[in-house]
């Protein structure tokens, strides 16, 4: 080793002591799969470079290589904890292309599962927000209560996480017997638990000290940065893709869009709790109002051979014949937006008239919220970074696709 190299390594240079970089991840105690390159000056963050792409499984390319219907289970794997909401946008885009509308009962069932999934997704986010500030109880409670909703979804669809419930023209299964009672019981349980969450977590002085006043995002900043989901609404912007009335039966139901004005990490957390309450409100109304009728559009029911059609209608389970996977998409394009637990998901499907979509563009809420890792932390202490990360409810597989 030459002396100059040795000197360079041994002696301090000008500017060395001012800014240094800390690499967090990709293996770190949080939800994993991403790296934050944090530039620090002393204990104060001067910049964060979110290095994403660790879970890039190339969904957009693979969706082009599959028949349109087969891309539903594929795209579901983006946000496995919220799989109904992540695919409903794609299904709506296909429906607009194919020119088919789901019957009313199917729309109600989609709304039902969407809200069950939203609750599960918010509980996941709240649990992780707990573990970010080393509050293991919150993690355990949230994940334990999440199982209640996962079990409900499993009863409805047959799968714990990957439901593939919505298909163009309707849904795959009808409501099982005794579902309403179980759902109402779950709601009663969850309402009780939400109060307990306040007692142990949200009103806990230690948690408040970590989360309150940290990472404040003002409304005009949130608008310009295109932030979505609870992170947006916690900054006082009343926007929710459910208000567009494009999917589900949200225009027939009465519910509120919770909005908070503070815009800090605590309000982002509290807003998730508010949204869980509203989702339970929606589930109650859906179960009361759900009409009788078919669960698949007439156009596609006729495709099922008569021998299979009768038992399918009686049992409420649709088994698709092979022809269904070979649906030709008419030439054209369609845009659809839907509200996931994490925020708004955007789909743009372009078709050239073949069975496979020519191009599927999907912009996921977590990908749109990545910009907040750049924007929020500078100026905070390093200790505040986990609190900011935890409050954003960032889900890496969704951002990386």
């Amino acid at each position, binding site marked *: 080793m030459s002396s100059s190299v040795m000197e360079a390594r041994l002696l301090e240079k000008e500017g060395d002591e001012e800014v240094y970089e800390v690499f967090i991840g*990709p*293996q*770190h*105690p949080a*939800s*994993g*799969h991403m790296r934050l390159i944090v530039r620090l000056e002393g204990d104060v963050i001067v910049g964060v470079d979110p290095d994403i*792409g*660790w*879970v*890039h*499984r*190339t969904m957009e*390319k*693979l969706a082009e*290589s599959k028949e349109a219907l087969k891309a539903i*289970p*594929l795209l579901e*794997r*983006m*946000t*496995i*904890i919220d799989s109904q909401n992540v695919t409903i946008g794609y299904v709506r885009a296909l429906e607009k292309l194919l020119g088919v509308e789901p019957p009313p009962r199917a729309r109600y069932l989609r709304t039902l599962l969407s809200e069950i999934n939203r609750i599960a997704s918010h509980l*996941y986010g709240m*649990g992780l927000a707990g573990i970010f500030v080393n509050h293991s109880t919150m*993690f*355990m*409670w949230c*994940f*334990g209560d*999440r*199982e209640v909703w*996962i079990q409900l979804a499993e009863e409805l669809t047959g799968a*714990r*996480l*990957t439901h593939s419930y919505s298909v163009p023209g309707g849904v795959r299964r009808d409501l099982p017997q005794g579902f309403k009672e179980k759902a109402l019981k779950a709601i009663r349980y969850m309402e009780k638990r939400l109060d307990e969450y306040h007692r142990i977590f949200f009103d806990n002085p230690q948690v408040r000290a970590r989360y309150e006043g940290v990472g404040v995002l003002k409304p005009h900043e949130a608008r310009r940065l295109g932030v979505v989901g609870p992170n947006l609404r916690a900054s006082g912007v009343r926007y929710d893709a459910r208000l567009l009335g494009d999917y589900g039966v949200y225009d027939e139901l009465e519910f509120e869009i919770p909005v908070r004005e503070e815009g800090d990490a605590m309000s982002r957390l509290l807003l998730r709790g508010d949204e869980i309450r509203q989702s339970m409100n929606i589930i109650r109304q859906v179960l009361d109002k759900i009409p009788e009728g078919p669960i698949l559009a007439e156009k596609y029911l006729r495709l099922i051979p008569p021998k299979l059609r009768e038992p399918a209608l009686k049992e409420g389970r649709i088994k698709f014949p092979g022809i269904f996977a070979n649906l030709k998409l008419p030439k054209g394009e369609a845009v659809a937006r839907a509200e996931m637990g994490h925020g708004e998901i955007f789909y743009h499907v372009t078709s050239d008239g073949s069975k496979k979509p020519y191009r599927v563009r999907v912009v996921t809420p977590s990908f749109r919220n990545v910009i907040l890792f750049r924007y929020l932390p500078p100026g905070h202490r390093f200790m505040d970074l986990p609190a900011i990360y935890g409050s954003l409810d960032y889900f890496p*597989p969704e951002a990386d696709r």
Partner: protein
Amino acid sequence: MTCPFMGLAFLGRLEESSRKAAQWLVERTPVRSLRDWAISFSLWPVHFTTSCCGAEFAAVSAPRFDMERYGFLPFNSPRQTNLLLIEGTLTRKMARAAEIVYQQMPSPKFVVAMGACAIDGGIFHNSYNIVRPHELFPIEYFIPGCPPRPEAVAQAIVRLHEKVKRSEYGVKARET
């Protein structure tokens, strides 16, 4: 020791030979089976979430399935862990990180591949950005499913317990 210089002179070789003797002793049946029995109850996976199966991995350690009763405690630092669970797809970027994490873990160490993607790509079999984990690590068990249910993960862990208790894990797991 009477002469301090003697001790110094033989220190190097003494240390090496005592290490070899200890190794020999540890590999003999009574000590080894005691050691493996002890290891089997402290399979700590490193908290390294490679992909979306991490959602079910989190459910495994959460209250309903509660794998902590089998001594299964996800831990942050690879230095204190001995089990690497590949949770789903391993992308090319992540594979490098996974190799580093695996190298940092003290031996004996075990790898369990979770999910269809970790077997042979699963639904992403034709993707341009994934790696088959069995090309990188000696894998003890594969867990099929997309994603596997938490019960399946629990079963794999219990199987691994039995395997470790019988001292049947691979040479690679012991030495590398």
